């Protein structure tokens, strides 16, 4: 790489490809087929297991809404696009973890199965799994913890038949929270691994 000396370009997070993911309020697309519908049904039943529910109070403040991942909610996304993935997953592009943990529980398994079904349907798509931690850890440890979480998700996707060459990981530690509070609700939502397909 070259020198990094242009001090006038102040775009925050320019190389940080993660964009803010909001809950997608969109009619269920049935293009996922029978498998996806079944899985979606099961996650609805199991969503309140040991982990924090997905249905939480609204985000405090308006999270930056520069979501270019989809234009979801604005018509039908192109099949096989990241927008389509987000719309189809209905929140299952993200799995959550307990404090300091990185194991895949039954809720996560359901979500990852949905992800795998979509990825197998679009075999040319590659994806990056972003691992995150909550703010109540030290910075460097959280980077390693996020990497460990992303790898847990990746390994489970591989076990479901997704080609290893298609899946990368990246950890952001505690540097990119999605929930902005300093409370258990926010921390539970920030301990996450998010699958982002690459358009």
């Amino acid at each position, binding site marked *: 790489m070259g020198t990094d000396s242009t001090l006038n370009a102040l775009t925050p997070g320019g190389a940080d490809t993660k964009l803010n993911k909001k809950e997608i309020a969109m009619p269920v697309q049935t293009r996922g087929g029978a498998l996806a519908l079944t899985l979606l049904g099961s996650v609805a039943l199991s969503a309140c297991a040991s982990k924090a529910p997905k249905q939480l109070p609204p985000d405090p403040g308006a999270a930056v809404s520069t979501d270019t991942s989809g234009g979801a909610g604005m018509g039908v996304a192109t099949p096989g696009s990241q927008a389509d993935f987000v719309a189809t997953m209905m929140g299952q592009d993200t799995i959550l973890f307990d404090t300091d943990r990185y194991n895949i529980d039954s809720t996560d398994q359901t979500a990852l199965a949905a992800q795998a079904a979509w990825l197998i349907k679009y075999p040319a798509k590659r994806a990056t799994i972003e691992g995150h931690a909550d703010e109540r850890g030290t910075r460097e440890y959280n980077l*390693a913890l996020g990497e460990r979480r*992303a790898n847990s998700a990746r390994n489970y996707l591989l076990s479901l038949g997704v080609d290893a060459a298609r899946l990368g990981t990246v950890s952001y530690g505690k*540097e990119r929270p999605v929930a902005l509070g300093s409370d258990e609700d926010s921390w539970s939502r920030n301990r996450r691994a998010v699958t982002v397909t690459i358009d």
Partner: protein
Amino acid sequence: MTSVKRILTSLSILPALLLSSAVQAQEAAPESAEEDVVGTLSNDTVVAIPAFATNAEAATQTSAGSTTALGNALAAIVADDLRNNGFYKPTGPAGLPRPALAEIQTPAYGTWEGRSAEMLVQGYVRANGDGQLTVGCYLYDISLKQRLAQAGWTVGPGEWRRAAHKCADMVYSRLSGENPFFDSRIAYIAETGPKDRRMKRLAIMDSDGANHTYLTTGQTIALTPRYSPDYKSILYLSYFNGAPRIYIIDPASRAQRLLFQSKNPLFAPRWSPDGKWVLYSMATGGNTDIYKIPAAGGTPTRLTDSPGIDIGGSFSPDGKRIVFESDRSGSQQVYVMNVDGTGQNRISFFGGRAATPEWSPRGDQIAFTHIAGNFRIAVMSPAGGELRHLTDSWQDEAPTWAPNGRIIQFFRTARGSGRTGLWQVDLTGRNERKLTTPVDGSDPSWGPIQP
């Protein structure tokens, strides 16, 4: 950066002043009591620091202006260094009479006694023909009517503040018996923007916050810098190209390169005390271990192989041991190992978690983040005893030692807003203050004393 030249030979205008050195005087000082940062001298000692004299009013190429203005600015920096770090009770230069050049060697003791000052710092500045500046600094004990220390330096116009820091270091060292630390620099991460999209830029500054410079643009996340022992390089983590890797940047030219090419994420870079080795952590399949590699390039050596996260190593000052953190026991705890990776032993048994260990440059203590509810900066002995908490706030983390091992900087995160700031605390835990930075700051890395 050109170095500050210590004057050891005679000067044309004040030939008798510079025969003895501050270093010799310092060796004669009594040993300080344990944990007593001010040695045998009361911290209430009033130190008068009038404006430095000059041989002639002359323009300079410094940001301070003429030699007269410069003399005032130099004294102000010396006073600020002492005051801001909780040492003694400096007064001046405002409100104090300005000594004439002839008084620099022969203070008007009566004048200063009348002002209830116990110590007196006087100095002079002279503009040389070549644009260089010569600064002399003298410390007197007013009641004893005795000169305690003196030194002089020649500096370039861009480094004039360093002469003041050297003077403050001379005064502090002579009065406390401790090693100097003011003439040093800090690398850190400057933070701006909302909590979910914080911009994180690598920045550097003098120990007092002056000469602040951003080294990266903020287009990619920068984290965890570490100044090299010679100040010529900074190791840090960058998401350039989208993934966390370790870069080495030259703060002067801003040229940078990868520490080495890797398909795996790399974290937590650290220098060895001699600058020849770099410790880092690498995740493979989610498992993070500590490695070392020659700073100039070469073959990495793996030092840990536990299935847990091993990260954040810090060398002992003799370079023989490494303190690091590992969650192999189930939670973050601090371990010590030999530099070849043998003899790994846990040393933290305090309840809660123990993270981000940093070995003191004196070798006698390890600073770390103790997580038991809140995040607090603490110190312990290298054997894991003598736990002492230095701070008590919601989230303090990532300690870095002053070059003399008597002060610790860290960063504090505010609950809710996530805003960060650089703070420092002395080893008594009593003198705590926030550093002034242009924007929020985190991950301070305090470099060594400059030559």
